[in-house]
């Protein structure tokens, strides 16, 4: 009898343990807690009721000037984003987003922000899966290329009116809406900071020795420097395309624009007749193939990631590096207080011979926007809270923080940013990104990941000489017609 009782008890314990194990989403609700869930993401619950340390309520100590609006809503607001604490170290946009978020929570103690934070790669996969299951969180970051598909399926809230009624509407940079627009409606408030996706970082000291006072403005001149650097035993330019997206984001979007111009890109995005098979785009691919075969890049560019390639520059094994703003913030943090930090300068991608559609452009923009699940509109009070969060996370509180601390800009314009307090590196990069050069579209902020995945895979083969540019554009066009 005793045995039987014991076995029933044990079986009961097992069942309970299994059920709670499967439960998964059970964020602890006492205090500010961070619970690691099985998939490696973090579920953070900032319970404002116990946030005495930040001094909840009116007159609370906040790092930014978040507006203290009155909200009727009391309860949870789900938020999913990718500004992890690791990411925010050195990345101004992430730091600004996290800071504003914490401040917003402080001034709105009745609203409990339930955060799901994960690294960007995981975020993209998870948010797409949640969208497929019609289970998007209340507030999240929308990537440009998902806008049209998700808007068509009614997953995301039309925010056109919300944006025009924003207290900060007069300060918004209207040019940032384009990736989040579908059929003249805007589906998000562009978030984080505008960052370039294509920049040449070069060691001005090395290039001076090679006979160039500044980085060459044409690729033909870059080729002239190749032999000099080869004699020094280093690569002219370091690049990493091991994960396949780099060639698209940090090279082709800009080089393509030089050949096709922005009208072609917009026509492709709006399905107004442009095709991947158009001669100008095919020319851009042909140029890309040839320049990567010319030997100015590190031999292993197709096998290593951008993280590996930038180490070649940091260690002095390459005289220049092509990457995006995320590489710049890493290189800046790593090189600080070295000679190379002082001699590192920025240049726009050189002009290819035969490309006449645009000059001195670089792919840049805001890749994500704060978007709201369309279901939230059912509860007007909750919607007001979500909208208030969206205003603050992209408004002056955020913009002033990132402008004064990092010399970065976002949706809300900040007039007369005082650069004098920043070192030369930061000033140069500010001028590169926002002053000296012209923006062009980031390809993979638009259209569909299915198209880019096909194109990127083929581009990698093309750079190995296994596919012709003609074949690559034909495959991309087919993927475009099938998926967009």
């Amino acid at each position: 009898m005793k045995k039987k009782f014991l076995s029933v008890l044990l079986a009961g314990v097992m069942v309970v343990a299994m059920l709670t194990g499967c439960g998964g989403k059970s964020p602890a609700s006492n205090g500010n807690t961070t619970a690691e869930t099985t998939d490696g993401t973090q579920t953070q619950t900032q319970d404002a009721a116990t946030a005495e340390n930040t001094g909840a309520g009116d007159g609370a100590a906040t790092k930014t000037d978040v507006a203290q609006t009155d909200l009727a809503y009391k309860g949870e607001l789900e938020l999913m984003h990718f500004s992890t604490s690791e990411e925010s170290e050195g990345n101004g946009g992430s730091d600004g987003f996290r800071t504003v978020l914490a401040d917003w929570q402080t001034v709105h103690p009745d609203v409990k922000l339930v955060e799901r934070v994960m690294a960007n790669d995981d975020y993209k996969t998870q948010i797409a899966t949640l969208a497929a299951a019609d289970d998007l969180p209340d507030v999240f970051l929308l990537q440009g290329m998902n806008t049209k598909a998700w808007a068509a399926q009614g997953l995301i809230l039309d925010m056109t009116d919300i944006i025009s009624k924003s207290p900060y509407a007069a300060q918004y940079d209207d040019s940032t809406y384009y990736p989040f627009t579908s059929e003249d409606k805007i589906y998000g408030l562009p978030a984080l900071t505008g960052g370039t996706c294509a920049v040449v970082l070069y060691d001005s000291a090395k290039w001076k020795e090679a006979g160039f006072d500044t980085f060459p403005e044409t690729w033909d001149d870059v080729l002239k420097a190749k032999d000099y650097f080869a004699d020094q035993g280093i690569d002219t330019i370091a690049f990493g395309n091991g994960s396949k997206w780099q060639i698209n984001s940090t090279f082709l979007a800009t080089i393509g624009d030089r050949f096709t111009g922005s009208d072609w890109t917009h026509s492709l995005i709006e399905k107004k007749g442009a095709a991947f098979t158009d001669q100008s785009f095919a020319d851009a691919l042909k140029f890309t193939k040839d320049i990567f075969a010319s030997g100015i890049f590190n031999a292993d560019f197709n096998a290593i990631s951008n993280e590996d390639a930038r180490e070649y520059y940091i260690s002095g094994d390459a005289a220049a590096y092509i990457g995006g703003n995320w590489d710049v913030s890493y290189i800046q943090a790593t090189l600080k207080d070295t000679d190379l930090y002082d001699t590192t300068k920025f240049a726009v991608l050189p002009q290819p011979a035969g490309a006449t559609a645009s000059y001195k452009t670089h792919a840049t923009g805001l890749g994500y926007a704060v978007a709201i699940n369309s279901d939230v509109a059912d509860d007007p009070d909750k919607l007001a809270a979500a909208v208030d969060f969206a205003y603050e996370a992209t408004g002056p509180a955020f913009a002033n923080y990132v402008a004064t601390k990092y010399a970065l800009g976002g949706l809300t314009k900040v007039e007369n940013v005082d650069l004098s307090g920043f070192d030369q590196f930061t000033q140069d990069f500010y001028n590169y990104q926002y002053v000296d050069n012209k923006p062009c579209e980031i390809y993979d902020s638009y259209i569909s990941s299915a198209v880019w995945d096909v194109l990127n895979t083929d581009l990698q083969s093309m750079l190995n000489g296994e596919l012709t540019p003609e074949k690559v554009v034909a495959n991309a066009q087919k993927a475009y017609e099938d998926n967009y």
Partner: protein
Amino acid sequence: MLSSIRPKNRVIFAYLILPIVLYVFAVFIPLVTAGFYSLFEWKGGPNKTFIGFENYVTLMKDSVFWKSFSHNIYLVIACIIGQIGLAFIFVLMINSRLVKLKGIHRTFGFFPSTVSAVAIGFIWTMVFDYKRGILNWFLDLIGKHDAIKVWLNESGLVMLLISLPLIWQFIGYYMVIILSAISSVDKEIFEVAEIDGANGFQRAIYIVLPLIKNTLLVCVTLCVAGNMKAFDHIFVMTAGGPGNASMVMALYGYKISFAQQNMGYGSAISIGIFITSLLVIGGSQLLVKLLSKDKGGDN
């Protein structure tokens, strides 16, 4: 006798219910739902359009899927030869009287199979690295500078290069299985063979091999099943690249479902993997049965 200790049916049922529920939940339901979703065009978002078997028609014509399938078969063959073949030879070596510290050999041999595939992927990526890799360093050292390559960017070699870590990782696993099979064989048989003058090679082929045949066949099945679902270390080392030169079925299904957000076609690929794997495993079983019958006839 037996029926007196046999528990009541409902007790057996009660014990089985948990694993069965788990199995149904974790294996059966996903399979059925994948089969269901594969009949839809479903590109992210809640909207799905019923398209019947169109995804399967696409799958039949999808050259990348069949290329991936051929890569899986390549892995299966490479690993049967590399993992089980080498494991068998290593076991014979360890079992030899000349070898000391058998326990240490066994432990260290088994060790790699306890390491996560992702970590192994990173380790071998470093081995093959162009500038800092030990392979190119060694080639440079012995004066073969011309042989230095960007190894993981060689379309023709990449499948061989990514099978190496897999083989290396699981030799120890099969070693342990084969060792236990040999240790269950009566020692006297080997002694008699030795007295009769059979050399090591003859003992291996004519005595050890027939006696542990059934264990080896289990190993082959495990190896086939394991390699039809290869994913993790390839994901880390090459992500299927360069181009699709090292793409395998599971990675392709993942790419289509999540990177391209094409859940409907991704589900069709999953079902495709399931069916092709069943066929390959079933085929290998059949082959194995035929082989064992032949041997039975000889005796």
